[in-house]
């Protein structure tokens, strides 16, 4: 059976307009294409917040400035995007990003990276290693001179420039290669944890603090203090509670070290929650993080990372802490004076030396 009418079709009105025939197969393909385009349009509209957030948060590749060289150390090399199989290293940074530092004279509004965790992900082995870098470690800064390891970020003006400076500092002092970074502000952490419905965590001890900074959650005075009491034991924390748990340090025998431990605990709990994310959640999470997270992890690698979080059992997470230092002072600052050779020995057990 043929489609359409033949020229000799007696029912064809004389003189009527002739339409070009469209072969059936082509017509079917056109219809299918229409459906595909419509479906893509629907998907794009759903993921539009994700796409716009991603454009704002990603796309910045690491630009390592010329480091202030440490004698005997190799220069950092530009990093290449990683595939899904080879191990890679991510520098996770957390910062205050409110007005208190502007008020205190910082032109950038940024102070430092209060939290820094170097993370080594080995997809093939299904393992993750987390190494907390003490923020008060006194080292050579990529921005020049010496300072606390966390200060390069603020010295360079925060933002992606500050991130580059912080990465360069970590790379030169610890002689490791940072492949990717994730920077998150205080509100970003709150938003992320709230968006995934909170985290389930064992609070290791009562976290009590009469001098906790009251600079989020509607605070109008970034220098105000607050009282915090996070009770111990298993609990379901929302974003604000989790931030209080990882940020408080005053009533902790180990001060920053203690909260380094708590920060890694929250990361593990967050990883567990993120592993429950489905495709439909990514849009909401991206919206929640809009403007509060900076990263160079390409969008294409997020599914791999999410997949990896499902594959890594909690028994395959290694927690490493730097303890090879002594207390000291520099000017009016309390600092940690590193034993770099001992520190490097520990770091290079888990992170390849450059």
């Amino acid at each position, binding site marked *: 059976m043929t489609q359409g009418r033949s020229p000799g079709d007696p029912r064809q009105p004389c003189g009527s307009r002739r339409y070009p025939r469209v072969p059936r197969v082509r017509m079917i393909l056109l219809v299918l294409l229409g459906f595909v385009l419509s479906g893509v349009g*629907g998907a794009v509209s759903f993921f539009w917040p994700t796409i716009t957030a991603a454009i704002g948060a990603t796309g910045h590749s690491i630009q390592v400035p010329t480091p202030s060289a440490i004698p005997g150390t190799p220069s950092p090399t530009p990093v290449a995007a990683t595939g899904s199989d080879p191990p890679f290293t991510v520098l996770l940074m957390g910062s205050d990003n409110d007005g208190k530092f502007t008020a205190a004279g910082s032109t950038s509004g940024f102070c430092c990276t209060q939290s820094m965790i170097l993370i080594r992900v080995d997809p093939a082995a299904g393992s993750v290693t987390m190494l907390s870098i003490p923020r008060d470690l006194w080292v050579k800064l990529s921005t020049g001179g010496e300072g606390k390891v966390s200060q390069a970020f603020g010295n360079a003006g925060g933002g992606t420039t500050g991130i580059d400076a912080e990465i360069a500092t970590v790379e030169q002092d610890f002689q490791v290669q940072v492949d990717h970074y994730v920077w998150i502000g205080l509100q970003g952490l709150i938003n992320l944890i709230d968006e995934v419905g909170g985290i389930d965590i064992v609070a290791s001890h009562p976290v009590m*603090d009469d001098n906790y900074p009251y600079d989020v959650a509607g605070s109008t005075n970034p220098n105000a203090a607050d*009282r915090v009491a996070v009770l111990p*034991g298993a609990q379901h924390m929302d974003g604000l509670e989790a931030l209080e748990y990882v940020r408080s340090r005053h*009533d902790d025998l180990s001060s920053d070290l203690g909260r380094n431990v708590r920060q890694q605990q929250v990361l593990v709990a967050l990883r567990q929650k993120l592993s429950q994310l489905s495709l439909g959640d990514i*849009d909401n999470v991206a919206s929640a993080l809009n403007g509060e997270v900076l990263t160079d992890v390409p969008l294409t690698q997020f599914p791999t990372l999410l997949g990896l979080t499902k594959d890594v059992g909690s028994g395959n997470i290694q927690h490493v802490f730097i303890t090879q230092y002594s207390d000291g002072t520099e000017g009016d600052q309390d600092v940690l004076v590193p034993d770099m050779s001992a520190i490097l020995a520990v770091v290079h057990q888990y992170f390849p030396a450059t």
Partner: protein
Amino acid sequence: MSRSRKLVTALVLLALMAGFGAGVNRYLASRDSSAFAPPKDPTQTFVKLIVPGTVYFADDGGLFALTGTKITQLQAEGGGWTQPVAIPNGAGLLAVKVTANYYSDLYQLGLNGSLEQQLSDDAGQVTVTQLGADDWLYYPAIGPDGNLYFSYDWPKGGVEDPGNGYQVDLSIWETTLGTHIDRTTIEKGEGMTQVSWANYYTGGDVSPVPLAGGGLIYADYELAYGDTGQLSTPLASAGPGTEVSQIRMDPKPLYNTAGSDGPALTQPQDDCAQPALNPAQTEIAMICTPVLDGAPSSTESDLVVATFDAATGTLGPLDRLVTGTLAASPTWSPDGTDLLYLAPEAGDGYFQLWYLQGAATATPSRPKQVTTDLDLDGSAPAWTS
């Protein structure tokens, strides 16, 4: 096909395409994880299992009572209510009301939730503006002698010693139920006895469980690293700031020995806390954190039961009855045979009530979920007959 039929066909196809696009959009939206769905009003939730008696619990700052399959609101959510405790002989409830980021107070309530009496006044005095003037009161417990035990953030360094201003640790105090509690009465010891001295900068001592023969069990906190900087083998990879808990028993004669800890019933590597004693005082249920890769897990906690001899202060082997989840805050049934505890619903982080029948027997039943869609705050429920 006529021109008009072609037109209609094209329009139908276009409509179908548009519908398909919208369908894809809605399908993706429907794929967000239900695991993150918010909890519901407890009175509107489904109770999966009937447990005997009445269970009082705190949910999202409110107080509720569960009897059979019915959940009744005693105090509305968002009120800061937590840690309900049943006063013996049906004389009512105690509960803590938290004013977030400032202080917490202890109240006595009727079994229907009516406010009977404010037992503490922990808001700072108006003449003192510093935050350290406020106080935290938590973990109320009533002893067999009818006395009240609680954790209080006093003494603390900030007020008495400005150079020590960061120290805010909970110590355990004892008083007669009904005695008014505030900073002044605590500081002056007016009707108050300090029964534990916190390890400085650890957060302090919590979860007092008074014993019939005097003394109490409680949980304290300390660094996993000892003074020597050495860790026991099971905790070999714990970070230098890792704190662990131990359950201790403080017999009465030590009460007035300032700074002394009671002997430990559990070991640091067991990281046990939240003790609950059965009425016969022969079994302790508790929560212990399993060790993973040489450090206490931050995402799992086990429900553990051990025999207990109050006379000698010894604990039997730890029997891990529930593992692989985030168990919290066990409570014995009034007859001491079964346990209620908190754990997340499968695939959902919000705590629900779970029931473990025959917990003290050699063959306890499998845990059964009692409630759904709640947002329990982690504090132990109170269970009455």
